[in-house]
């Protein structure tokens, strides 16, 4: 940390940045940026924190005003293809996802949640104000706190997704502004929106949680992680050659580390190529490091940007990776989801979960939040593995209330080894009021991704010591036991069509229906208020005129 002479006691904060580049087996390139700020302070106590240095003030004020204990927000464009790309370091569903644990001092969680979503909507220039009670749920088991804290009363947890949310430069710019160096120095100079959004997958997230500073957890500090995952496509025009460089991916090279960062590193995953047969990296480096991540021990070439020697004589770093050949791998846990059925009346949601471990079975928690206008019938829920019924050991189901809250289904399912488990549930599509449809009603309605959380058995022993110095990408999810690691898989969002009324007809419908009711009223009114009388035939027109003239003359009529 750079010593800054001042008479005010310095808040003890620390900033680290890192970039992990992993060549994927399909030929794509996965780049994961993580920026972490650790700050030993207490937002919760009465003294208002006013001297912000590395920690962004807007987020600090959000934490103290809304008594937030943990906040996780992600914006994703595209869908992570687990089968081709393996597991991401930080999974996220398409669209926007927000889940927050509040402190137990909050009395009105729903009101605070509403205000928080509106404030975050302003901070990130996203339409998070569309989060309301119709798409918010309180999962009972799937989203346990990732930081310290032993409060597990899920009344203080709120989870919402907006699968329809688009991510663009407008969201990236305020995200970059939260970084201590902005986008002027360090790894953040690579974040140019023109290249970043020209990719197969782009996800930016902000995670705030309290963590322990040391082993005994005597002091706690607040951790802010800003992560950005991006996958570049091999077949993007101009990238026909099997060769990647920082300049080609980001149209920039690196010239210096962020001066405020205590550590600034680039990791290139060379596990699949220890002898340099599949690809070669230049400029070469002798710094190697090993880390346990996603149940596997992986080897990385490290480039330390705080060392001037990394930049060489040209004073800029442009990493180059040249391919030689390719191979394939299968992830242990993988899921798919689709809608079956035809017509606009009913349908069926099928979720398939694949367990590719050869001999171990493990339990997974499936969380499904389905909007209220797809009425689920829970008695049609079936879970089958390998053709046989597989009864879940824990089901938490909260039925929806029209226009108030969505369905919440959480299940604990044991996945047998080397098998596919299929979860099906039938639903009925509702007809909404004409004002409740979006301007493009025939596009369909989005159903947020299902979340599958599980502790997957790992091949190597995981490191449970959370305070040891580790690269950021392997220290996100807390590790409680050595034999397994925590993984979260998001399925595809669904697009479902609903029957639509004719939007051009409100006045016509009102008139026609009121006419029918009036026909009923009129006939019954006639029969109730009139009585039968003998009809006297009325004389012809000539006679009537003659009678009128006669009356005027005072003469008796014809």
């Amino acid at each position, binding site marked *: 940390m750079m010593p800054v002479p001042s008479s005010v006691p310095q808040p003890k904060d620390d900033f680290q940045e890192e970039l992990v580049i992993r060549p994927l087996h399909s030929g794509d390139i996965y780049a994961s940026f993580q920026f972490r700020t650790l700050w030993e302070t207490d937002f919760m106590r009465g003294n208002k924190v006013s001297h912000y240095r590395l920690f962004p003030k807007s987020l600090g004020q959000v934490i103290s005003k809304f008594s937030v204990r943990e906040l996780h927000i992600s914006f994703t464009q595209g869908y992570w293809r687990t089968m081709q790309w393996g597991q991401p370091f930080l999974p996220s569903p398409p669209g926007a996802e927000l889940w927050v644990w509040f402190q137990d001092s909050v009395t009105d969680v729903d009101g605070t949640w509403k205000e928080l979503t509106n404030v975050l909507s302003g901070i990130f220039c996203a339409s998070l104000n569309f989060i309301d009670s119709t798409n918010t749920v309180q999962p009972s088991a799937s989203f346990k706190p990732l930081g310290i804290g032993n409060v597990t009363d899920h009344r203080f947890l709120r989870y919402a997704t907006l699968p329809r949310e688009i991510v663009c430069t407008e969201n990236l710019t305020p995200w970059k502004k939260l970084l201590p160096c902005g986008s002027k120095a360090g790894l953040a100079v690579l974040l140019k929106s023109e290249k970043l959004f020209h990719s197969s997958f782009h996800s930016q997230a902000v995670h705030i949680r309290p963590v322990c500073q040391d082993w005994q957890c005597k002091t706690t500090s607040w951790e802010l992680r800003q992560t950005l995952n991006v996958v570049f496509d091999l077949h993007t025009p101009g990238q026909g050659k099997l060769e990647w460089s920082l300049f080609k991916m980001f149209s920039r090279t690196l010239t210096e580390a962020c001066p405020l960062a205590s550590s600034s590193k680039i990791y290139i995953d060379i596990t699949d190529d220890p002898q340099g047969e599949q690809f070669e990296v230049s400029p070469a480096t002798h710094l190697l490091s090993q880390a346990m991540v996603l149940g596997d021990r992986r080897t990385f070439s490290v480039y330390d940007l705080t060392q001037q020697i990394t930049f060489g004589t040209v004073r800029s770093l442009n990493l180059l990776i040249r391919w030689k050949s390719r191979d394939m791998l299968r992830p242990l846990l993988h899921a798919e989801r689709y809608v079956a059925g035809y017509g606009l009346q009913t349908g069926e949601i099928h979720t398939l979960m694949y367990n590719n471990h050869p001999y171990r079975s493990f339990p997974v928690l499936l969380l499904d939040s389905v909007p209220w206008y797809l009425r689920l019938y829970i008695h049609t829920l079936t879970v089958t593995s390998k053709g046989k019924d597989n009864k879940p050991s824990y089901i938490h189901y909260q039925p929806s209330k029209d226009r108030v809250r969505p369905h919440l289904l959480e299940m604990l399912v044991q996945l047998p080894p080397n098998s596919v488990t299929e979860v099906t549930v039938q639903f009925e599509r509702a007809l909404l*009021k004409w004002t409740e449809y979006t301007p493009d009603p025939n596009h369909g309605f989005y159903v947020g991704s299902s979340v599958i959380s599980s502790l997957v058995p790992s091949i190597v022993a995981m490191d449970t010591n959370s305070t040891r110095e580790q690269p950021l990408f392997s220290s996100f999810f807390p590790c409680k036991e050595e034999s397994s690691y925590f993984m979260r898989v998001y399925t595809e969002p669904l697009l479902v069509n609903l029957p639509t009324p004719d939007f051009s007809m409100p006045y016509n419908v009102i008139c026609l229906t009121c006419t029918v009711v009036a026909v009923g009223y009129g006939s019954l009114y006639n029969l109730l208020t009139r009585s*039968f009388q003998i009809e006297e035939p009325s004389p012809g027109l000539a006679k009537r005129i003659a009678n009128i003239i006669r009356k005027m003359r005072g003469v008796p009529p014809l």
Partner: protein
Amino acid sequence: MAAPLTLLLLVAVTVRAALYRSSLADLISERVEVVSPLTAWKRVVEGLALLDLGVSPYSGDVFHETPLIIYLFHFLVDYAEITFMLADVITAVALYLSVKDYNKQVFRKQKYALEADRYPLDCLELIRSPKEMQYIPLKVAMFYLLNPFTILSCVAKSTCGLNNAVIALFVLSTIKGNSRTHSSPAEGNSIYPLTLCAAALLYLLQRQYIPVNLRRFSFWWFVAQYAFMYLGSLFVIVGLSFFLLGSWDFLPSVYGFILSVPDLTPNIGLFWYFFAEMFEHFRLFFLCVFQINVFFYTVPLSIKLKEHPVFLIFMQLAVISIFKSYPTVGDIALYMAFLPVWSHLHRFLRNIFLVSCVLLACSALFPVLWHLWIYAGSANSNFYYAITLLFNVAQILLVSDYFYAFLRREHHLSHGLYLKRKDGSEATLVLK
């Protein structure tokens, strides 16, 4: 009479059992014309499944039956088909017995009127004979049991069949004059049969020979007794419903649902598309208008038909079936079962051919246009809505036609059949 009735019941049960065993049963239980969010069997099963999961069925928006249905089907869910067939049989037998009793009373009143010489001489052909009235109860039972609407409703296991059974038992106990068994379970499952209590009250007054005179004490005393008994049984039913789940959640879920119409699933009624296209500002206003419309005809009809309470029951049932918030074909089948009772009015009916053609055509077009909208995607909701409108107009015409014929016959019975004008030529009757 027992033998033909038994034969009819056997045929009806056979037809239903055959349809249960066929693949049509699943298809029919999905049809929106036959089941509604209030009466669908799928939702009853869902409610029972939620109860098994430990969640209250009324915490969501899928189950809208009273807790009495949970009581009943908690034990009978495996025998559901037999329950619904039995409900149809009970309805038919109740209607048979009540129409038989009613005919006896009609004939007795007619005999007294003839002896008192109250009918003009030329309307003797309007007098009804026992011979023509002999087969009417059987025809009523047949109209109910073999009506395709009833069969569809039974095969779909729509709880409308249970509602109809309860209403039929209510009518039976009214006509038998047995005020001890006379209660308000009809009120239990939906609020609209409330309007039938006025008709039942008038019938019981007539049976006890208490004239409907607002100044007399005996009238008010009887009304008070009846109201007390009716409200008492209503409280018993609501209290029983409360004690099942120990909460009042079912009140907004059942009665609040019927009155506020939040679910806009298409059906054969007028409410769904009207409120799907309603401007938000006017929603409450039109909701009140439409709901009042159902109850509003009670007082005028009771005043006009105070001498003929059974026809009033028929009119009320028809008005409820047409204008209720979630009608199904099972409701229509109930009031159509009464039509043979008024078969002597056929010479005064004016539109019966048009109405029956329209009803047949609409019944055939409903599934076609639904398929075109929901499955083929080549029509839109307006097509289905148009057929809904036409179907309801036809029903309104049918009901008002019978009302016209009834009133006209009454007029002829007091003024003579062949009317002459002042100059002796044949007269025409109009409503003025």
